[in-house]
């Protein structure tokens, strides 16, 4: 049982941690807004190009996909692609930049637990992912009519996917010792998985072996869960997709906290 003096102490610690978490989030948000030309604009430009080239020019010849206009079909995938790359990119660059500039020490010497530090950076990735997702959604509305079949599925898929890739970006940044290593995973792993994750096509178009292989790709499940929210159709089992996202969130968060707690990449 707590003694009378322990209860307020515990409350003050909780309060202090909440303030610490908010401070990291405010700092991350400030960074996103301060360098908006690098953080918010590029995805809008890329999405516009995808819509113009793949949607309007090539898409007209592709015809309907899974019963929808091709531009409607690719819109959720393009939004999700921007969420994935920006969530990941935000955390990996912010945390690695803090390591490189040594200001990660500001956090490491503070009494904040590692779980709060990981949560703060993840929230920063989530904010950027959702901000960019919102911008790309606005861009897509210029090119395609987007129905909303399951609103909460859209929100849940966006938030969980963004969280998963923010955490993945954090772990990448923990291990990275150079800018080359920081970019290795996004270029050689993330981009191929995203392009083979059903952004531009329905997985049912693939031969059997390729379909089976595609189901190993978590991005396929995320894109389809998100598309299900808009169009009400999916190539994967939607509940299983959300289960996978939750599982990845828990596993990656625990991994990130453990790595930072051991001081991997940040302590001698």
């Amino acid at each position, binding site marked *: 049982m707590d003694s009378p003096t322990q209860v307020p102490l515990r409350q*003050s*610690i909780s*309060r*202090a*941690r909440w*303030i*610490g978490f*908010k*401070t*990291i989030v*405010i*700092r991350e948000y*400030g960074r996103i807004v*301060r360098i908006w030309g690098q953080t918010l604009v590029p995805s809008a430009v890329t999405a516009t190009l995808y819509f113009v080239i793949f949607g309007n020019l090539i898409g007209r010849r592709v015809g309907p996909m899974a019963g929808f206009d091709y531009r409607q079909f690719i819109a959720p995938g393009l939004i999700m692609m921007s969420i994935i790359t920006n969530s990941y990119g935000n955390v990996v660059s912010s945390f690695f930049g*803090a390591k490189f*500039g*040594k*200001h990660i*020490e*500001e*956090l*490491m*010497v*503070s*009494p*904040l*637990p590692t779980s709060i530090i990981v949560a703060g950076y993840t929230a920063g990735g989530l904010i950027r992912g959702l901000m960019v997702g919102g911008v790309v959604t606005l861009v897509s509305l210029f090119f395609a009519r987007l129905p909303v079949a399951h609103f909460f599925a859209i929100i849940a898929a966006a938030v969980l996917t963004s969280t998963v890739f923010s955490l993945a970006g954090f772990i990448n940044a923990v291990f990275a010792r150079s800018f080359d290593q920081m970019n290795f995973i996004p270029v050689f792993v993330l981009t191929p998985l995203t392009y083979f994750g059903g952004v531009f096509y329905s997985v049912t178009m693939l031969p059997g072996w390729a379909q089976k292989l595609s189901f190993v790709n978590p991005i396929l499940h995320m894109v389809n869960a998100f598309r299900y929210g808009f169009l009400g159709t999916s190539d994967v089992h939607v509940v299983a997709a959300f289960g996978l996202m939750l599982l990845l969130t828990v596993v990656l968060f625990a991994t990130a906290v453990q790595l930072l707690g051991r*001081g991997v990449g*940040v*302590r*001698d």
Partner: protein
Amino acid sequence: MLALSTRGLTKTYKNGVHALRSVDLDVEEGDFFALLGPNGAGKTTLIGIMTSLVNKTGGTASIFGYDIDKQLERAKSCIGVVPQELNFNQFESPMTIVVNQAGFYGIERSEARVRAERYLRQLQLWDKRNSAARGLSGGMKRRLMIARALMHEPRLLILDEPTAGVDIEIRRTMWDFLRDINARGTTIILTTHYLEEAESLCRNIAIIDKGGIIERDRMSNLLRRLNTQTFVLNTRGTLQAAPPVVGFGVRLIDEHTLEADIGKEQDLNGLFVELSRLGVEVLSMRNKINRLEEIFMQLVETGGQAAAGVAATADATGAAGAAAPPSTRASHG
């Protein structure tokens, strides 16, 4: 109460370097404590372990009684650290940097802004509060790190080379500021290469070399151990040779400059009487090197052996003991 206490603190890096070898060190609450040592002696590693930037490989350490293995958050909340290298985001403003730092220690932003104004003003950074930190001068950046370290009003302030590269005027201002902080109850541990700084500010001192503490004493006791001091004398007339002063080692440096060795049992009056008798007029005089520097060099060059001989004769109240043997004295050009 002890602000800092370590027992058997050991650090061996992955490359096999033994940075700390079973360090036992106590620093009393309220002290202004100098931790000195040559480059690579283990000072920054010791500070790194205290601030959890370095994982120790053995031993224990506590801050105000909080064991860093069992109560790390509590221990860290007591410490403010000014590191040797700049470690703030150069793209942020001083105001943002210090307010955020307060937030990491659980201080509300409204309170953090009040403290930010106080410390940025005291450290003469208020006018630059909204400028990008990368545009600040070297001295301003150092002061910004001090302001940042004070935002949560730590009980123990650790300063690792805080005045490196800072001009003498600003250094003196920083000394006054640190004396004031210490007088108001903050324990300060200082590492510096400016031994004049340590001598001027600190009451107690530890000298670390090759990962071990080779000396730990009151500053005044340590300075009293100096066997011989060398003074540089500027003379009015032109000298062709060193005057034959009885009982003092006097050397001619140039036609207007002499060097004189004064033993701790001798006094300066005797030297001046002798010089006056020989018709040498002294215009000014200074220590050839800082007193602490001389002792520091003796201790480091003998691996603490010089100090060991002295410490054995030091009395319980810290009165000076015998000095290091002349053969152990460092020679300085």
